[in-house]
């Protein structure tokens, strides 16, 4: 599976026109989805999360609260992508680590686990 690579920055994204293959492409899709505001895509109204609202506007009160919000966003993205399995790829897990926000890092750390079959997990 071939996709077009994106360079995602704090200001948005740029096309870098690199070919990205296989799970890398899928993972990039999930990152894009996590950054998409829910309801902004008229084709898929349920695509996206509320991460934007909470984290860019810093609308959270504590690290625990931030982690809760991140977990909900991960579940929303997981549920959304669970319906797309035509490549025999199965999304196994999305985990967002919100603690990075409190370590003066500008970025959220996201783990995405995709399996081709239940016995062969790939990170």
């Amino acid at each position, binding site marked *: *599976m071939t996709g077009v690579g994106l360079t995602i920055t704090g200001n948005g994204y740029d096309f870098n026109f690199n070919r990205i293959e296989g799970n890398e492409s899928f993972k990039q899709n999930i990152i894009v989805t996590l950054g998409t505001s829910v309801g902004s895509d008229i084709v898929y109204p349920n695509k996206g999360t509320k991460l934007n609202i909470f984290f860019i506007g810093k609308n959270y009160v504590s690290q625990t609260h931030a982690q809760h919000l991140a977990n909900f966003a991960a579940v929303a993205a997981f549920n959304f992508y669970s319906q797309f399995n035509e490549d025999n790829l199965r999304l196994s897990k999305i985990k967002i680590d919100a603690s990075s926000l409190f370590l003066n890092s500008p970025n959220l750390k996201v783990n995405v686990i995709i399996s081709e079959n239940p016995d062969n997990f790939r990170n």
Partner: protein
Amino acid sequence: MNINTYATYYPSVIDSQNLSAYNENLRLWLKANSTEDIDTKPGSVIGDLILGSESIVNAALDQALTNFTSDLDLANPSAGTIYNCDFVGRYVENFSTTNYTEITSSGTIRLVFSDASFRVIDRGVQFRNNNQIFVPRVYKEGNIRILSPGQTKSYDSNDYVLTGLGTRFYVDIPVYSMDATAVTNLAPFEISELISGLLEIYAIGDFWSKSTTSSIQELANKTRITSVSANATTRSGLVRLVRQEFPDIKAVSPVVVGDYEMTRQSVNVLGLPSPSVDLYVKTPLYGTEMKEPVRLEFDDSTQSYYGELTLQDTPLKIKTIAFSDELGTEVDFKSYFLSTDSTSPALSAYGTSNNRIWVKFPAPKNSSNVAIVPPALDTTTNSFYQIFEVTYVCDPGLKIIEDFFLSPDTKPIGIDLKVKLFRPIDFTALYINHARKRGVKINQAKAREEINSYLQTISWPESYSDATIIDSMFYAGASNVFKIEADAYLLVGPCDYLITEEPTSILFLTDEDNYTEIPKFRITGSNNFAYKAKDTETNYPDNKHYATGPRNISFLLNSNQILFREVGNNVV
């Protein structure tokens, strides 16, 4: 034709609920048909930026195609759902249904001449009533020929035979107009040509008319009814052909070999039935009452009048014969029917143009045994005669349909087709026994109109059903409907007697060996409105050749003959 699909078929607003389904279909279709394994999932560059937009276009295109195919399926336009009127209007033209050739008004006019000489009228002649132009409805080549009384019509030209007496001879010509015009009985017409001896022109019966322009919805509906196979090769095709050519027709029913109502069951040398079709028709003028003068000779030896009735139209029944003086005394006559068509013997020629009728009756006398009206003397032949007025019931529209099927252009190939009038059930009264709730008034006018309209238009394969009448009665306010009774006769001939050769004198009609009685079937209720009766035994000398059944029976009644009889207990 420039179909502006964007303006007509594309939806103005996309239904976003189904967009994801369109996107999914498009993605999977692309995946199955592309050699490259491109990531098109949501969130991917191709998926979001290209397929996302494409799926919106696809959704719109799909809706546009749905709308377009809806216009092609004429069931939808005929039900009023039309997306592109221009297209549907042009599309139905492919089935010979056009707004331009739509006949919006048709009927028959009578031309009265001062003498009986032969005339030719240009077929381009126009008749005018109330600033609306009517043209002759003729189907054969050449001009219109007005023949003198007694002349024989040629079946490959537009011939009409004069009838009448003295200084008034007349001929009936069917006309039509593309303009919607309500012409009433006896309305005067003007003519575009100067024709010698033409005294007057007037309408016979009310003209059939409809609104000026057919809506696309109406046209689509008509196309559905007529277009599938409008030709004379099948029963339904024949019905469609007639309905397409004569949109004003009230009922049409083809009877073919094998049907109970067919009287021509002959087989050819190969043992196959000959392809015969009796096409029973009923135009809006069915049941028109005509009055025409006839001259009958007086026979001194029997003190009786007798002679042939030369009438303009084919009688369904002879109603009365009366002296043409002011008193108009009616006479008690006997009538005799003769078929002039070798392939439609005896009563199978009833309701066609191929028959002749004679009448005979004793000169009416008063109590002193003196003739009420003495016979007049014809000094040229030195014989006695009298002028009588014949009142008869007919369908002046028969001629035009006969002409259509005899025209060289439209005559069916290889089929022996005869156009006939529906056999009438001649009503004196139709009684509808009903009950009503106390205090409720029944809208009799409405019920009468609905019931009459129903009875006038039913024809095979739709057969009579009490349910429709009961429904109309309930709608008009009745609480219950009981028996529907009739005081009526089913007619299988217009006369009292059937003769098999032309009478040479009054004595011929007096000899009982020369005629047989034509039966009349008493109809007492709605259970025998589709009365089956038949006499078509071959090789039987008295064979009368009639056959009636649900396919060829119609109702001859006017709305005043529908009577409401309140019976039973009123429901409180």
